[in-house]
């Protein structure tokens, strides 16, 4: 099992993302996008393609846009090919914004981007822990998960979805994660449970096959128990909730 973790131009969560995959048993490599453009055939050696969080191009022209355009110009066909195989793709935070801008998720009409990531309703950068629940979704990334406690850290985490697309997303069961409140009920847009005002409390979307997951929260930052706020009150566990996402990737191939 091999994972390729993308880096370059302001992506900055590659080390901890690779580490999370390694902890569950993957072998992996951080590959700079320019090296991947030089030699796209190396994608054949990997089962998982991960775009980590960060600030590619400083979010200029919209988060994820510039990097998505670089991929579209130089690597688009190879990535489409990867996603059509029995392989997994994950985009976390800035990676999520890049996948959305590429149109790889939700990819209902399989062409131009159908969803946009826009600025948080608060107008502020939000770094905080949230609770999310798995929607009605068959993605291997989300198998056997009910809820997760994970951190978010973003300026543009609000999913903006045109009505007709939202309808298709629901019909096709593509909602990956949704923000919930203290009572485990949908946050219904209420801050800080829903940190960005995202429509239908959406925190993650998948494509129709479920092998591509675009999620705003950071599972790699909730890998160990000591990552969780006030973990001192419960020291019996080893792992945090983020671990489950990476385990699912492993279990998919084992």
């Amino acid at each position, binding site marked *: 099992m091999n994972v390729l973790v993308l880096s370059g131009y302001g992506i900055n969560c590659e080390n901890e993302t690779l580490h999370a995959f390694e902890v569950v048993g993957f072998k992996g490599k951080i590959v700079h996008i320019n090296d991947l453009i030089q030699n796209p055939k190396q994608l054949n050696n990997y089962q998982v393609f991960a775009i980590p969080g960060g600030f590619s191009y400083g979010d200029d022209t919209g988060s994820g846009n510039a990097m998505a355009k670089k991929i579209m110009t130089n690597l688009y066909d190879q990535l489409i090919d990867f996603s059509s195989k029995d392989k997994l793709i994950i985009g976390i935070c800035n990676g999520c914004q890049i996948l959305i801008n590429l149109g790889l998720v939700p990819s209902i009409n399989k062409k131009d981007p159908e969803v946009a990531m826009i600025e948080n309703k608060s*107008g502020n950068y939000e770094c905080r822990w949230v609770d999310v629940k798995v929607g009605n979704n068959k993605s291997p990334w989300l198998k056997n998960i009910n809820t997760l406690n994970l951190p978010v*850290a973003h300026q543009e985490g609000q999913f903006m979805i045109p009505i007709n697309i939202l309808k298709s997303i629901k019909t096709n069961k593509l909602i990956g994660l949704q923000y919930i409140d203290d009572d485990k009920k949908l946050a219904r847009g209420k801050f800080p449970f829903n940190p960005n005002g995202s429509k239908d409390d959406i925190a993650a979307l998948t494509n129709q096959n479920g092998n591509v997951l675009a999620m705003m929260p950071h599972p790699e*930052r909730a890998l160990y128990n000591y990552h969780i706020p006030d973990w001192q009150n419960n020291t019996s566990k080893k792992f945090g909730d983020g671990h489950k996402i990476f385990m699912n990737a492993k279990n998919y191939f084992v």
Partner: protein
Amino acid sequence: MTNTIQILSIEKTGKESSLQKEHNNKSIKIIDGYFFSTNLDYQKFTKISKLISNDVSQTILTKKNVNKILSSYSKFNWVVEIKFLPGVTDNIATTVKEIIKDNLKSSFKSFELGSTKIILIKGRKEDITKISKNEANPLIQTIKIYPFKKYLNNFKKNQFKIEKVKLPKKKYSKKEINLDISDYHLSLIGKLGIEENDKSRRGTLGLDLESLKAIRNYFFTLKRKPTDVEIETLAQTWSEHCKHKIFSARIDDIQEGIFKKYIKGATEKIIQLRKDNFCVSLFTDNAGGIEFNKDWIICHKVETHNTPSALDPFGGAITGIVGVNRDCLGFGKGAKPIANTYAYYLADPNKKYQLYRQKNKDPMLPANFIAKGVISGVRVGGNCSGIPTPQGNVYFDDRFAGKPLVFCGTVGIIPKKIKGKLSHKKKANPGDIILMAGGRVGKDGIHGATFSSEELDPNSPVSAVQIGDPITQKKMSDVIIRELRDENLYSSITDNGAGGLSSSIGEMAKESGGFIVNIEKVPLKYNGLYPWEIWISESQERMTLAIPPANVKKVIKRFNARGVEATIIGKFIKKEKAIVKYNKIEILNLDMEFLHDGYPKLNLKTSFPKIKKEKKKVIKKSSLIDKLHKLLSSPNIVSKEFIATQYDHEVQATSIVKPLQGEGRIFGNATAIKPLFDDEKSIALSQAAYPQYAETNPYDMAGCSIDTAFKNLIVSGANSKKIAILDNFCWCSSDEPERLYQLKEAAKACYDYAVAYQTPFISGKDSMFNDFKGFDKNGKSVKISIPPTLLISSIGIVDKISYLTKITPSDDDILIVLGNTLNELEDSVYSKIIGYEHSKNPVVDSKVALRTYKNFEKANKLGIINSAIGIDLGGLGIAVTKMAIASKKGLIIDLKLKNKISVDQFLFSETQSRIVVSLKKNKLANFKKIFKISDYTIIGKCTGSDVIEFKDSKKIIRGKISDFANSYKQNIKGL
């Protein structure tokens, strides 16, 4: 054909909402504009628009649709167009250019573009003017206000313009300066700069008469006149900012100066006593280094960026944080930045100070503009660089109205050995190539080093402001840390900060002997810079490397492959000469010894200050609960959560004790990160400063700062033998004997307390003239000096995860205060908010304090302590209330008054070296085995209810936790 692309968000953006709320105007819309230097045909317009916008969320404005689309939002009537002045870093434009070039390849070669923010409103001209004042800074941006009709007209007639840097294309001829002139004219050169042929002046050199005379004498012996480049270089190198002349000056009877005697002296004494490997690299490098574990070193550095932040708060602060990141990159062979810290000392953002640098003109920026700009500058700098920012604080006082203090710090990590060689040792060898990597050079920050050493006055230069570009730096930093360092491809490295190349190369050349630089090789942002400008420019995002010739090709190739420029600009030589050439003409040739040591040493005298303090004996009558609420909601105690949530403190997945603690989210005194996945050791970070105590007793003020910074790490669980500290002195009027007396006293305390606690100083920085000289709104001349401020930053190692403490007590825990409470309300938050009471200032007894800390450490390791919080601003009352808010569990506090103190004194005195701990009942016996009965007081217990109760001998006073939480979480007015 069009020369602009303008993009509109279909839905209301977060920024628009906050603007609308702030200005109470529902009709505000923001357009992202790009102005091109050439016209775009339809095909290019369509293609580029698609590249830089989003079909789903945005609309592209065209000549045809602009009227219709905009009128669907509102009947706009005023417009403000904000764009960067020519030559100011425009990061968005850089990105857009890169996307276009990558996509259109060679089909679209030469073009310029600038990014623009266009704000439309329905309202009056006064409204748009007010908005523009809050959204733009005239020092770095052009602000054009005009009617909406004209905007439409501009659109139709292609009348949007970008301004390019226009510099005279004169052929350079070597300029020699005659110093054989009167003292008066000599001092004019120092104060106003070198005179150009047209009689204008270049801007301050910050050189005093004595220094200029030393330069004159040096060139007299050489039998030639100095060049302009030589004088500029000496001004940079000898600046207070670079040489710390006051700290190294003879002061009264201290021949060696206060740095050598008290700061370095303390560390040397400690090393002599400790005999361990804790201190690795001190004072000599860009940051100070200590041992983390057997394989790794960590380094820490804290810088100030005060004057630039006063002029351009966002630019000043972002440059401050990315600049100190480079200090880590320039530590040893290059440490990876793993945490940022911040501390802001600001004027009240809710007040209007109305200060002017010149009579009735050139106003200081409003206090809330400065506060917001500084906070967002560090946010963008830290977040975009992927470096967590867990630790910081903010403090407000009117005396920062003339100059804000902006402290930015970074922690880095580096393996002890790289390919078998010690990583903290570096040496540029003769023959090594000088390589400049990263960004290009422009007029940014010319004279930054010389002017930050001076008071802020009308002659402060505009070009002294730089804006950092964290993405360019991130790209460069990744190549250095991941692809060059661990193969030992370079022999030395340092960053380009104050003084630019003149400073970085000048410093590195000490390792080899000297240098020869061909300054025309330096890549420029735009043509027309003079050689002296290139040499001292403070353009950001650049590192200077010394590379053995055999590795040069490989190194340049690796930089280029990641989209980073790297250029050979000269070589290091053995001969102790500093030589700069411009197209083969020698424009600088100095002896290295004179360059670094030729400046005249100061001889300073101090005198005991007459304290001019207003003493009012007014105590406003109110209940205890009322007083608690007032203190909790006062700006210096209230939660700083709104900053913590804006700063990514989770990136790198190292955050283990977070800035917001407990379910009730208390803004903690210390935070911790666990930097390595395979070692359970963590790094605890804290900081402290007490400017409010400084005028009463600067010695005790410094003692309190060191004690608090040390205590906070002890409380977090750090090993008392593995704590190091950093000193950042921000002083005022350091040419006045009274201020120098305070400085000497504070430095003396640094020695005494550091040696007592055995905590070495590993790095430090000073900024000596934080004064504002100008005018008030009536045109009356005013001088505002900051209170002397000593920020002590502490960094310590927590050996085991289980030693990390929490601040949340559990049900039935016993509450104990460690340390005795004295009547020390002088200069406290209580005396400021509730009313002044004649009292004493807090004094640290290091023996008692150390006993408390050692016992705490022992008890914590044995698992006796369940929760703990250090007592600081607002005293015991605030500390226990914070515990209750954090845990959402009620407490009952028994007001046992010892030492004849009153209830108010017991609760709000700021006596130092105290800790509140909670423990399970069954641990009390073990606790008593460790602590002497006179060292602690049992004050109550955790009830788990929803109220805090204070029990007097007669009555019980109650308050709901949720009410206290509301007070503690109030917004700071003006922010």
